[in-house]
């Protein structure tokens, strides 16, 4: 096994492979940062070029792009409150407030550092799981998927901000949006009003553009000034260094976010958006700076950003072990594996083990390289948040509307985004939290599907499966432990006083 690990590393560290990785990362950065251009599109664009390449070079190119997209999605999330990809939604919620405080560079740097560390965590998980990949996959079934997604739904309450009722209403609207489209079990069109456009449901990018980007632009235009409420003074490098330090100081949340990402990665079908949201929700519950969430909390950036990168390691597990891709991006990678002559599946753990290790190494190196590039560009990118509104507002509007269109090449998306813009603005003005709505949209369909399948396959008591019970126990402990701990501390403090 060590031989294979070294051989895999040797295959990667050639000038050619590294150059192609760099190229892949550059493409991924651009695609990730523009809302509507997804990681899948980046991979699909690069796919024709891998024909005839050596397997490791091809993987370096594609995985480089794949990893970079995960990081770059957070750039627009932090700067203009619109995630470049669905996997960076929760990053908006504390990244953008931090940018408003004039610390965009710090937020970008936290995001870059925790992406790298999360990615490395994913790498460790991937390598650690190589011997037991298959057993793990065999153990987790629909009920476990349901439980994981259901816990995510519970975060609606946590992310409500002030009012529980308002959070529930917002989450309810999200669920209603989630149920638009063909019923996943019976394929009966629901709430589609005879429109083919609505059959696939409403995709995330127009919703996010409408709910988050438009209200911000409207507020900015009303208020004038720039995104940052304070003026640019001095060098940004101090803030960047601060961001790196922040990430290492908050190692508890970093580990927690990475672990959430890895677990969700192993469950193919849940995806990076769920990882990002769940890690944020959990951190909002366990973080020490809980009360600052939504106002630029450091933990609120670390958790989601580490999760969406560590997810990649987990995602690769079913792809490699069984030749069954863990997500849409992985499905394209799988196509590429075949095109360059690798056969994903059980062979990758025996005769092809060196390639499996090469992929793990690529993942690790690409993460570090992405972060290095990201950190280097933090300062110039962060300056965007100090631009005056008359330059910024039209640009953001244009980018967002084009992004909404690009998401599926549907013009209806643009109208939808504008319409939801009004909803978002009203919600903002009347103090309705918008995060629960997004959670409802993302998780509604998933919860429905797995609940249905669990009931049908395992009956009404499906959650009594040993593995399900184990999972429930872990979740209860993670959520309850900090609460109990804090109560005890308070009680202890009360006694001494």
């Amino acid at each position: 096994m060590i031989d294979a690990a070294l051989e895999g590393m040797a295959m990667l560290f050639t000038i050619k492979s590294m150059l192609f990785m760099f190229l892949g990362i550059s493409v991924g950065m651009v695609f990730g940062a523009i809302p509507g251009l997804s990681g899948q599109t980046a991979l699909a664009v690069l796919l024709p070029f891998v024909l005839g390449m050596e397997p490791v070079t091809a993987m370096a190119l594609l995985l480089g792009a794949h990893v970079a997209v995960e990081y770059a999605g957070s750039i627009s999330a932090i700067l203009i409150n619109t995630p470049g990809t669905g996997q960076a939604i929760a990053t908006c919620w504390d990244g953008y407030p931090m940018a408003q405080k004039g610390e965009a560079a710090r937020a970008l740097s936290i995001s870059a550092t925790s992406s790298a560390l999360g990615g490395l965590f994913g790498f460790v998980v991937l390598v650690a799981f190589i011997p037991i990949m298959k057993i793990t996959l065999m153990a987790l079934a629909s009920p476990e998927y349901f439980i994981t997604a259901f816990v995510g739904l519970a975060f609606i309450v946590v992310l409500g901000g002030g009012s529980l009722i308002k959070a529930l209403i917002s989450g309810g609207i999200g669920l209603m949006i989630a149920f638009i489209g063909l019923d996943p079990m019976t394929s009966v069109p629901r709430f589609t009003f005879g429109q083919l456009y609505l059959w696939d449901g409403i995709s995330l990018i127009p919703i996010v553009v409408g709910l988050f980007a438009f209200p911000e632009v409207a507020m900015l235009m009303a208020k004038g000034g720039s995104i940052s409420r304070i003026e640019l003074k001095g060098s940004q490098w101090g803030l960047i260094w601060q961001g790196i330090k922040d990430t290492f100081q908050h190692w508890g949340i970093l580990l927690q976010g990475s672990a959430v990402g890895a677990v969700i990665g192993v469950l193919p079908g849940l995806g990076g958006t769920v990882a990002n949201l769940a890690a944020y929700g959990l951190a909002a519950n366990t973080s020490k700076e809980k009360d600052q969430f939504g106002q630029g909390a450091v933990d609120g950036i670390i958790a989601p950003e580490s999760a969406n990168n560590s997810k990649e390691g987990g995602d690769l597990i079913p792809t490699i072990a069984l030749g069954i891709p863990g997500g849409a991006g992985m499905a394209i990678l799988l196509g590429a594996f075949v095109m360059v002559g690798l056969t994903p599946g059980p062979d990758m753990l025996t005769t092809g083990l060196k390639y499996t290790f090469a992929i793990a190494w690529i993942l690790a190196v690409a993460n570090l390289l992405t972060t290095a590039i990201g950190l280097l560009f933090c300062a110039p990118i962060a300056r965007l948040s100090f631009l005056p509104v008359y330059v910024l507002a039209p640009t953001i509007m244009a980018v967002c509307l084009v992004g909404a269109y690009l998401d599926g090449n549907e013009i209806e998306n643009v109208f939808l985004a504008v319409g939801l813009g009004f909803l978002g603005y009203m919600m903002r003005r009347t103090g309705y939290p918008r995060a629960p709505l997004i959670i409802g949209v993302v998780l509604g369909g998933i919860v429905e599907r797995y609940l249905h399948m669990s009931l049908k396959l395992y009956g009404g008591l499906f959650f009594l499966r040993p593995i399900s019970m184990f999972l429930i126990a872990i979740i209860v402990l993670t959520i309850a432990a900090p609460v109990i701990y804090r109560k005890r501390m308070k009680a202890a403090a009360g006694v001494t006083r």
Partner: protein
Amino acid sequence: MKLKRFFLFFVAVSLLPLSMVYPPSLWGQTEAEQLKWYHDKTINLIVPHGAGGGFDIYARLVAPFFKKHIPGVNIIVQNITGAGGLRGRNQVYTARPDGLTIGFTTGAGMIFSVWSGLEGVQFDLRKMNYLGRIAYESQVLALSNRGPLKSFQDLKKAGRPIKLGFSGVGSDDYYTTAIIASYFGYKTDPITGYSGSREANLAAVRGEVDGVQVQASSLMPLFKSGDLIPVLTLAYKRDPELPNVPTAIELAETPEAREIALAMTNIFVVDRLFFAPPDIAPSRLNFLRRTFDKIVDDREFLEYANKAKRPVDPLKGEEVERLVREILKVGEQKIQPLVREIAKQAR
């Protein structure tokens, strides 16, 4: 090359007097005229499937060769997904029949969407024009190694409906498995809701469902490792890589079952096809079909496809058209009512 050009020139010149007697509108345009017409025009190749997927890869492999064989033409591959591919297929069908809009999709998917009476279908498969099929991949019914059922005979002896995993009711495999089952003496219990065939396959490996229907090539490694047991293929002949797996036609015990097995096999024989809107001028349709034939015969293309590990097994447009008509004829009496029934039950 020069000889060929000379020959073309010769043909064109020799046809010249003919055109004076009969105007082109009567006897159709020559290849040279078609080539001239296409010069500087843009063909839209609509792929109603996601970027980077199997259909998309084929379309993008073929696209540059349209340019090669129709000099001066431009071609754009557009992924128009939505409504399970219906949006893109409708868009091709309702496009102007000038030969500048063509599509590439699954024939099986179109047939089942028509038969099930899916709302929103705007196309008539008898009027649709077919340019040719690019590849055929045999479908395989595979059972989980972790379940109690290990062979086709076990299905009949199971004494309970067989749990099969699908992404949704509308999928090809959903109808196919149910129809085969009803003529082969067992029942199925479809488990829908998996986010795609990949997740359904994982569920089968895990033993959560008894089996799935898959494309043979995509899961060959899992057959070799023994995680999935292939028990039946939908093909005229056994798959050379799975010599011990009988075809549905072989397994049929009654003449009726045999007829159904053949029809179901035909449906997948016309699976990956290029199509065009109805009412295209015959000369232009013929030109597009011959261009397709040239592409799939082009050694450079075959090498290119081979490099990408995409099998090419072409069938001419005329043959596809004949098969589709035959499938519709047999199917409308015997299979369509069943498909309707299955779709109704699912609701």
